[in-house]
């Protein structure tokens, strides 16, 4: 499903975030990206999600060459991916419900069908009772779960999560990981970056370790 071949990402200024990374992730896999901060975990996720282009090498997702993708094709590619951000990127000027509705709205889905899907997604992350609240009134863990609900509402086959459990206490982290596990069980491919080794021991899955932009064996 995801294939990286000799991928290097150099940012303007010369900093090399990833050096010659080759990696294959199969459909339905649960992959943890680990490594120290600045190891290139976020960069790797951004390359897979077509948020950035590789400097050299190829990134292929679902048979599409992400690096060569034309601008007009990008939105349609991104709709097949659920993105979960470390900083949530929620919209604070609208309700919890409307935040989750946004991806569906972008895809042209409205009315009752959309509302049902939104409530199903909110139910999965345990926020159904807060659909009318503003995101700012939610706790950190709830905000993270809201971000997850938004990522899964359009039922993507691939979910990319950047440090979803960072800054959360253990109970919240476990909640969120259980949610991810449930997605994994229904066949969703998950790539999750984390620096929490214990989490990986507890949940299994494949561990891909990065150090200074290089894959560790």
């Amino acid at each position, binding site marked *: 499903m995801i294939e990286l071949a000799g991928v290097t990402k150099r940012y303007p200024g010369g900093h090399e975030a990833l050096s010659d990374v080759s990696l294959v992730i199969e459909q339905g896999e649960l992959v943890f990206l680990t490594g120290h901060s600045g190891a290139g975990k976020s960069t790797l996720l951004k390359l897979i999600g*077509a*948020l950035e282009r590789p400097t050299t090498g190829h990134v292929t997702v679902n048979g599409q060459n992400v690096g060569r993708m034309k601008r007009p094709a990008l939105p349609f590619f991104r709709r097949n991916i659920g993105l979960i951000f470390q900083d949530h*990127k929620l*919209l604070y000027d609208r309700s919890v419900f409307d935040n989750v509705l*946004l*991806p569906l709205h972008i895809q042209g889905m409205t009315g009752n069908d959309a509302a049902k899907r939104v409530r199903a997604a909110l139910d999965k992350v345990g926020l159904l009772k807060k659909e009318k609240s503003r995101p700012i009134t939610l706790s950190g863990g709830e905000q993270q779960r809201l971000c997850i609900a938004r990522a899964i509402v359009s039922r993507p086959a691939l979910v990319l999560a950047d440090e979803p459990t960072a800054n959360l206490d253990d109970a919240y982290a476990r909640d969120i990981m259980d949610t991810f596990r449930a997605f994994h069980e229904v066949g969703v491919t998950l790539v999750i970056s984390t620096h929490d080794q214990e989490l990986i021991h507890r949940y299994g899955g494949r561990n891909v370790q990065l150090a200074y932009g290089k894959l560790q064996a």
Partner: protein
Amino acid sequence: MNAWLAHHWHSLRIAAQRFLDTPLATLFTVLVIGVAVALPTGLYLLLENLDQAAGGVKPQAEITLFLKAEVSEADGKALSSTLSKQVDVAGVRFVSKSDGVHKLESAGLADIAAGLAENPLPHTLIVTPKDTDPGALEALGTRLQSQKGVERVVMDSEWIKRLSALMALGQDLVFTLSAMLGLALAAITANTIRLQIYAQKDEIEVARLIGATDRFIRRPFLYFGAIQGLAGGAAGWLLVAVGHQAISGSVAKVVAAYGADFVISGLAPNDLAMLLGLSAALGWLGAYFAVGQALRSSESF
């Protein structure tokens, strides 16, 4: 199709909501656009009215043909009827020698007329042209000059030429002013849209990350630009209407003093429709450029 319509409706509502969120800023922007629109519109209206006022005088443009002394009255009348059949001639009046003298007498010049040994006046034809356009008048005059039996052609067309040149100058002025202030309208809109984009930065970023197309992001801003332009156009029209009301009293006095019968007219419905349509289109255009520029510069991919 339904979803598409729903999104348009949604975008329209977002745009309207943004107006209501910042009523004062919106009011000022609309006023500025209104003034920008009112200037060329007012000038246009002024010209239209001048044209109309002058229109009442124009048909009096006449070409006088003095016939040669040897031409008899019968030949003169024959020429008159020949000329009156020509396509660009509205009418021909034959003024005989004796009629000419009568005219002199009735004009209060009887003493002079009486002092003359014999009637020195030639037979005269007064030709009323159909077309008062200076070029057409010139052409007709030249042709009449070459008619057999015509001694001299006197055309009173200089003032028509001047008026027509002035009108053309006025029209060019309206056009130039419209172009410049239209540009200003688009620029004002682009600027308000830029501020809005800045305020909506997070929303745009998130929408993009989860697969919004440029079109999806652009649409509410385009609606906003068009509505703002429309409102500005309406404000401009209102300003012109108020100005019209304010001066119509004094115009009526001037007109009365000249003993003329003329009422200044307001903007015709089709002109108003064009004004509103153009303002909306320019607002839309300004928004389009502002959003396009913002979308390009925020693209990291």
